[in-house]
């Protein structure tokens, strides 16, 4: 019989080594998969990992794709550390895009430096408002925030649909579901000419640094960790749980809303029925891949973004079907989680040893 036994000590080196290890394992298993499917493994891997990064445009696109993932994951990670499970970032993103985008449409045809900042504030507030519902229900009535935030995602997407087929629909659009294009003053400026890398990427970088500082250098960060890992001790120390619920969901919601706003004012340029291809859900994976650490989220966001770009590129240059590129992306996560389990547990064959049961390691 094979059992998983918790390790007494978790090697801190291994915790940081597992992600690169998972990438290497994915490359090996991917090569075998591609070979079995009849694709040249070297060419396929090149298409996945190297080709997207081999031009300035490709690097800029990596930034475009990674920006919303990093921004959302950074916000979610704070909540996840505190044990607040906000699964509804996709809905908060949508509401942020709607609220901020609406402000942009109000100033349609006008110019002014104040328009973009106003849109950003509205975007953050939109995401926060949507996250406030699960926060209120959780803090007041202890309603499960996982279910509430997840279900509100679908409500949010339907709200977007109702508005884009209704009041937000462009009068010049022949009845098609799209808003007007934002005026130049309501669009994020591009950082590098000829690419789509926008100001949102820089703002995201600044926010990541701020969150990192908050988490590692302030009492607030300490409280988050204590509440997440030892709720009883936190209560004893007088840390307010409901305050933490509110802060967690407001950070997750606000940053998701901002990410949604960046999408509509950046690469998309208008409100459309599909604002995000599931960034709010993918960001949950990014947050955990990044070890719930702001800087880890940056690396994980870049890696996941690269896997998307690589998947598209492999379809184009190698002729690989999307299903295969999806399997490859899935393998990456599988190896990461598997390596994670093996870092925390050891495989034992035979009957359980009657030894002392070691205390379970932290996150």
């Amino acid at each position, binding site marked *: 019989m094979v059992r998983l036994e918790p390790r007494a000590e978790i090697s801190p080196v291994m915790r940081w080594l597992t992600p690169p290890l998972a990438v290497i394992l994915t490359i090996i298993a991917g090569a075998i998969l591609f070979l079995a499917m009849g694709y040249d493994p070297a060419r396929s891997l090149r298409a996945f990992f190297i080709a997207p990064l081999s031009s300035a445009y490709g690097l800029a696109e990596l930034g475009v794709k990674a920006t919303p993932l990093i921004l959302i994951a950074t916000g979610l990670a704070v909540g996840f550390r505190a044990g607040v499970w906000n699964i509804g970032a996709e809905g908060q993103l949508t509401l942020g895009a709607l609220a901020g985008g609406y402000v942009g449409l109000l100033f349609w045809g006008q110019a002014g430096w104040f328009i973009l900042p106003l849109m950003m504030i509205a975007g953050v507030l939109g995401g926060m408002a949507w996250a406030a519902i699960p926060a209120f229900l959780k803090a007041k009535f202890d309603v499960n925030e996982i279910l509430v935030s997840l279900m509100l995602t679908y409500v949010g997407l339907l709200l977007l649909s109702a508005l884009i*087929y209704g009041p937000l629909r462009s009068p010049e659009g*022949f*009845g*098609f*579901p799209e808003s007007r294009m934002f005026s130049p003053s309501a669009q994020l400026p591009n950082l590098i000419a000829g690419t*789509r890398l926008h100001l949102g990427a820089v703002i995201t970088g600044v926010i990541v640094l701020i969150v990192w500082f908050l988490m590692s250098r302030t009492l607030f960060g300490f409280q988050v960790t204590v509440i997440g890992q030892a709720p009883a001790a936190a209560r004893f120390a007088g840390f307010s749980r409901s305050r933490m619920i509110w802060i967690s969901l407001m950070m997750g919601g606000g940053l998701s809303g901002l990410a949604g706003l960046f999408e509509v004012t950046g690469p*998309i340029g208008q409100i459309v029925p599909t604002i995000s291809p599931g960034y709010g859900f993918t960001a949950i994976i990014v947050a955990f891949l990044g070890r719930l650490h702001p800087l880890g989220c940056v690396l994980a966001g870049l890696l996941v973004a690269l896997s998307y770009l690589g998947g598209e590129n492999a379809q*184009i240059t190698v002729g690989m079907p*999307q299903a295969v590129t999806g399997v490859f992306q899935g393998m990456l996560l599988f190896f990461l989680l598997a390596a994670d389990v093996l870092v925390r547990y050891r495989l034992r064959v035979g009957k359980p040893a009657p030894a002392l049961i070691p205390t379970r390691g932290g996150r």
Partner: protein
Amino acid sequence: MTSRRSLFAATLFAGAAALAPVSLAADEPFKVGFVYVGPVGDHGWTYQHDQGRLALEEHFGDAVETTFVENVSEGADTERVIRQLVDAGNEMIFTTSFGFMNATANMAEQFPDVTFEHATGYRQADNLATYLSVTYQGRYVSGFLAGELSETGKIGYIASFPIPEVIRDINAVMLGAQAVRDDVEMVIIWANTWYDPAREAEIAGVMIDQGVDVIIQHTDSPAALQVAEERGVWAVGQASDMTRFGPTAHITAVVNDWGPYYVERVQAVMDGTWESHDFWGGMAEDVIRLTPINERVPADVAEEAMAIAASIEDGSFHPFTGPLKNQAGEVVVPEGVTMTNAELAGMDWYVEGITGALPN
């Protein structure tokens, strides 16, 4: 070492560049890219575009090389996918969903040497044409058949999104059915998706529970047809021949046949005769056709349906010819007047007899 290698690479590159025009003219295939909104295996909209792509390969052989990207999200990703296709050397790119419009237009502006064609949109440029299939022609015949075959008089319409194309087709079905009987009731349910087999099947079930006995769908999977087959009601296939998913239920299907159009347009670019246009392809242009009508349909009904189809094809009959009234009973199109394409392109009203308001 590094410098030697890069010097070597530079020499190689210069050599290749010098050779390029020669080899291009000699045996480089003409590269055509496709951007799909769904999976090629949807058995509907995207499947048919991919059939058109395969028709290109068959027609041109080695002279043309095609590439496609499937399941492309209609948002920030579209532009990058198009750009990647351009970078990969595609000289002509077809983008086959409305939501790709602005990204396609942006790329057309940035790459004036690449020829773009966008399905179902309204933005054109010197190197960007638009094309669509006038499915309402087939829908009208479907409506006629539904009116003939229904016992309850209730026709179900699984609608995707309230855009002009879908509204046009709902109206065409209603007009076709009203040509047969006065008591038609259309049960319209909005799926809010183009492709979601589970939801489509669920809607079909709800419709049948409400007494619908002919289901027409404007969504792309064959799921509704399978439900119709199981529950013993009629259904019309969408975009592709779906007979194999419900041999008893399948009355006919309104098939989009993109192959001839794609072949013609690629040939035009290769010949240097390509010009931008806004193309509406119907039965006469071989873009729309009906699959053979189910043998269970009485022969005289099938014959009459084919006669209507023939009259649409030869232009002697247009489904949107007045008098047409809106839901309030007001005449919108006077007797003898036929709606123009421009009017049809923005159709945002239901014809008389349809109950319920347009989602707005």
